């Protein structure tokens, strides 16, 4: 690990000031320190925000939940309100990482974790995300775990989070604090950038901008589930995952909020997939149409071709599970 200056933030504005000056913000550190050991990231300074008062989960005026950026993945997954009213989020969190990592990883850090693309991690390999302009060794390399949607010729990395996939389905927003004290709210679609020709730019956050909380809207009616398909039964990243919230009234689907992990550089949501489902009776034929739409522009690069049929089957299976009672 390269030497760095360690600074402990006294308040949120202190953190944004240091970060605007080039320090990297450290919270749980479970991904950042790994990257620093490999010298994929080599910051001159770390600003430690762990002692700031950003670790509360509070109810909002309209029945939602404001989750402080430093709430750990364990605390969030185990919060009884989340378990009862936003179960897709608990399920996604519990499907991610290990008990030890969930105890350290934070809500803000989870959103901003880096891809696990093997070529990003290997400094001997070309990677436009790690070193802009150097090329992408993954395109013609071992790309089995990499993205099939939203990619560019410059980058095919996936976003690795499970939590963010559930939050995307739930319509969560992040609250941020910029240097100078201004705040803003972004939904997760706005937060994340697609790689285009600048895969090193992953979010719209400005230098120094700190995620202070994630806000969940009020609970919605319907069934919720998170399905994760991976190489081993536990403690592995998703090859494909689906977060689904689905409601049926009088035999027809009236709500279908769906987000996907393992397929794209950001937690993926396609409102056209949802539009195909809403208003119709749940049939396997309809589910196949939804999968057709999801994968209309999907592109495999060899090793990851299997993700297309896998995503199709996973989506159909999740929709079948969520509509089971209505279909009997």
């Amino acid at each position, binding site marked *: 690990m390269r030497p760095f200056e360690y600074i402990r933030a006294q308040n949120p504005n202190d953190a944004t000031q240091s970060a605007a000056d080039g320090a990297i913000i450290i919270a749980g550190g*479970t991904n950042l*320190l790994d990257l620093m050991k490999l010298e994929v990231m080599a910051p001159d300074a770390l600003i430690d925000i762990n002692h700031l008062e950003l670790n509360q989960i509070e109810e909002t005026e309209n029945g939602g939940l404001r989750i402080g950026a430093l709430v750990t993945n364990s605390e969030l997954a*185990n919060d009884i309100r989340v*378990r009862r009213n936003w179960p897709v989020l608990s399920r996604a969190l519990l499907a991610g990482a290990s*008990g030890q*990592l969930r105890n350290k990883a934070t809500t803000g850090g989870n959103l901003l974790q880096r891809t696990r693309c093997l070529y990003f991690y290997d400094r001997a390999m070309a990677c436009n995300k790690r070193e802009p302009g150097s090329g992408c060794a993954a395109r013609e390399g071992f790309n089995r775990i990499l993205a099939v949607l939203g990619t560019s010729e410059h980058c095919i990395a996936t976003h690795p989070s499970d939590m963010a996939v559930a939050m995307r389905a739930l319509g969560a927003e992040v609250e941020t604090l910029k240097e100078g004290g201004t705040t803003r709210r972004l939904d997760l679609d706005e937060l994340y950038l697609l790689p285009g020709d600048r895969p090193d730019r992953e979010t719209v956050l400005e230098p120094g901008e700190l995620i202070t909380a994630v806000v969940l809207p009020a609970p919605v009616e319907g069934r919720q589930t998170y399905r994760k398909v991976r190489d081993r039964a536990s*403690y592995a990243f998703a090859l494909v995952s689906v977060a689904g919230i689905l409601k049926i009234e009088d035999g027809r689907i009236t709500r279908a909020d769906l987000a996907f992990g393992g397929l794209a550089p950001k937690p993926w949501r396609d409102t056209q997939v949802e539009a195909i489902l809403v208003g119709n009776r749940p049939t396997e034929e309809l589910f196949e149409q939804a999968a057709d739409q999801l994968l209309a522009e999907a592109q495999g690069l060899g090793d990851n071709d299997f993700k297309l049929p896998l995503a199709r089957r996973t989506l159909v299976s999740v929709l079948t599970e969520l509509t089971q009672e209505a279909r009997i």
Partner: protein
Amino acid sequence: MQTNLMINGTQQQLELDPRTTLLDALRHHLGLTGTKKGCDHGQCGACTVMVNGRRINSCLTLACMHDEDEVTTIEGIGQPDNLSALQKAFVSEDGFQCGYCTPGQICSATAMLEEVKNGWPSHVTDDLDGQADLSTEEISERMSGNLCRCSAYPNIVEAIRKAAGEGA
């Protein structure tokens, strides 16, 4: 930089390079070599310790981030003449082969049983609102952050179940 840690009930004052992980502080600066370094990247769990009662990977955190925190290592869980229930069960159930992952397994399981007592669900718990049992499936899922290269998993699971039954 100066860091104060409460380790196994004893206050320790350390002068450390900020790069020092909690794992290296324990092993190299305090001689607490029960905590093991396996992968050093948070993938194997050999370095598991408890910080303020919660199990974490000590390789993936800096010692200086834990100023004034309480750390429990395998040395604080039990000693040869005073083994914890889990340590005894690992011996009686033969819950290891080479033993390298064992301190991490025991620290992890000690904290995991508290998580179960506190009603934390896991990925394999059917009812998010109910109390989880200690089935093989539940124990395996909750212990998935601790790898055993010798694959002593069946006996590790039995040891944990036995200790839990005795109120570890």
